[in-house]
């Protein structure tokens, strides 16, 4: 089973986000990047499949933020190949551009399964997985939480989430693209000692591709929601907040 995992870096929301003077993009200097959370789950799911049925896991990352570090981490976790893709993308918001780059690299294979995170926090123009599937004319399933490979290695059985904690079991013919919501277990932890060891020996391949012509975006402006709009803010420390919330609940007859 040849499994390709497509990843991208997204701004870490722990840091405050600032909008640049153009008003149309984030202030790149203020950003710290991390691996998109559901891409981390896609990698974990790929490793779980490999452990069960054998095969290879190849991880691709667009060169942004800490992409190289994320790829080394993927190798430390058990990936077989790591590819850093440099396309000189300036806007972190263009999934169509990202998907075109991935599709160009992957066209012709060989792969059985492409896994990627179903959503990223910066998805504005669709999701990478669905767009790659559309470009490569492959089937796509999103919001996947479990994947099993059929006995003949030609199909996968995937669980897709629906609202209300429902899910559907779907069978898909390979090759296919799956958008992973969460892996069957939380992404694995890599001890620092292992990571250090891999950093010394690992190879991250680099490929340069020309940026796609079409960016498809027409962002007129970015803006932040009004801070605390709607909420009455309770001032003071935790003790004071506890007192005020308790009396609010008492007034509203919510205490038994």
């Amino acid at each position, binding site marked *: 089973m040849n499994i390709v995992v497509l990843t991208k870096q997204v701004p870490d*929301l722990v840091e405050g*986000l600032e909008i640049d003077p153009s008003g149309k993009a984030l202030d790149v200097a203020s950003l710290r990047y991390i691996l998109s959370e559901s891409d981390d789950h896609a990698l974990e799911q790929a490793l779980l499949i490999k452990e069960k049925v054998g095969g290879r896991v190849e991880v691709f990352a667009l060169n942004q933020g800490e992409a190289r570090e994320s790829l080394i981490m993927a190798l430390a976790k058990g990936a077989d190949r790591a590819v850093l893709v440099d396309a000189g993308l300036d806007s972190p918001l263009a999934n169509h551009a990202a998907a075109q780059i991935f599709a160009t690299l992957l066209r012709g294979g060989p792969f059985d399964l492409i896994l990627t995170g179903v959503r990223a926090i910066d*998805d504005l*123009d669709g999701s990478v*997985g*669905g767009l790659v599937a559309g470009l490569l004319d492959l089937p796509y399933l999103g919001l996947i939480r479990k994947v099993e490979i059929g006995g003949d290695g030609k199909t996968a059985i995937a669980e897709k989430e629906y609202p209300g*904690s429902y899910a*559907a079991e779907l069978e898909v013919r390979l090759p296919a693209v799956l958008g992973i919501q969460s892996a069957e277990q939380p992404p694995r932890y890599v001890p620092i000692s292992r990571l250090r060891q891999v950093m010394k020996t690992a190879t991250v391949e680099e490929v340069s591709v020309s940026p796609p012509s079409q960016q498809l975006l027409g962002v007129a402006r970015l803006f932040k929601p009004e801070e605390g709009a709607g909420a009455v803010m309770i001032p003071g420390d*935790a003790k004071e907040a506890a007192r005020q919330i308790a009396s609010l609940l*008492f007034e509203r007859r919510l205490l038994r």
Partner: protein
Amino acid sequence: MGNDILVFAEHFRGTLNDITYELLGKARELARSLGSRLVVGLLGHEVGGFVEKLGAADQICLVDRPELKEFASDTTKAILEAILEDVQPRLVMLGSTSIGLELLSLISARKGFPCFDNCTRLESRDGRLVATCQIYGGKIFAEVALPDATTLVAVVPGSFPKEPGEVAARPELRSIALPPVLPEARVTFRKLLEPPPGDVDITKAPILVAVGRGIQNADNLPLAEELAEALSGVVCASRPVIDQGWLPLTRQVGKSGMTVKPKLFLAFGISGAPEHLEGMKQSELIVAVNTDPNAPIFSIAHYGAVVDALELLPLLTEEVSNQATKKASS
């Protein structure tokens, strides 16, 4: 490209989803100001009964086939593309849902139509369509002028009221030239998996104590459970807590979890990602506690406090117990 607006009607387990009416209501408003026709794509098997509930539309493209009994994007996409070919709409509206998210990206890439996801506002300004989409966990909104081409927009459930879309009338049926043979289905539906049984039903609990990433680790869960007990409430959580396996799937509030409308929703350490807000914003009273003053949860909460949830939880449990004692003795 013509001037029509096409709404993809979503249904699940024999019922039209609320998002369908939400889309229809907004589409009707836009159609009025743009002088557009409102066309609905209704795909499924034995779904003819839905037609009279879609009275907000001018026309319905009804495709009723056994292979559409359950949603599989591979088959649905092929038929929806044929409908788009025939209608040539300027705007295609879908839900940003389990179903809509697959169709949005697949069709956008295949047909070369621009698409925008996570839309929470859609309006016409001087004949141009402008969409507002939430990104970065709801911390930033992007305003986009829709290009002069067929554009797909996926709308976050709960963004528009559903009442304007609930019109009982029988719109005209529009026949569509479909490919005589559909491409062989590469995706097949096997079965529906029911929610796991045996746990409490959080949609029925009047008081919910919700925890998010700010709870930090499973060892801190008892702090929330103690408060829930003092309030006769139930503990629930946002996605990250469920993904870590700290609470069962039945306790998840949000897009793939439950939609709750309790009398009281206490949110501890929940930043308020759009996927979560979708499932709880209709609660009668929302009190949110988060260390980040910019957390989107404060934009929909009624009351907020910028303090550490872990510090607040035991203090609040104590205060609540004291109030209860006072109440009992008064």
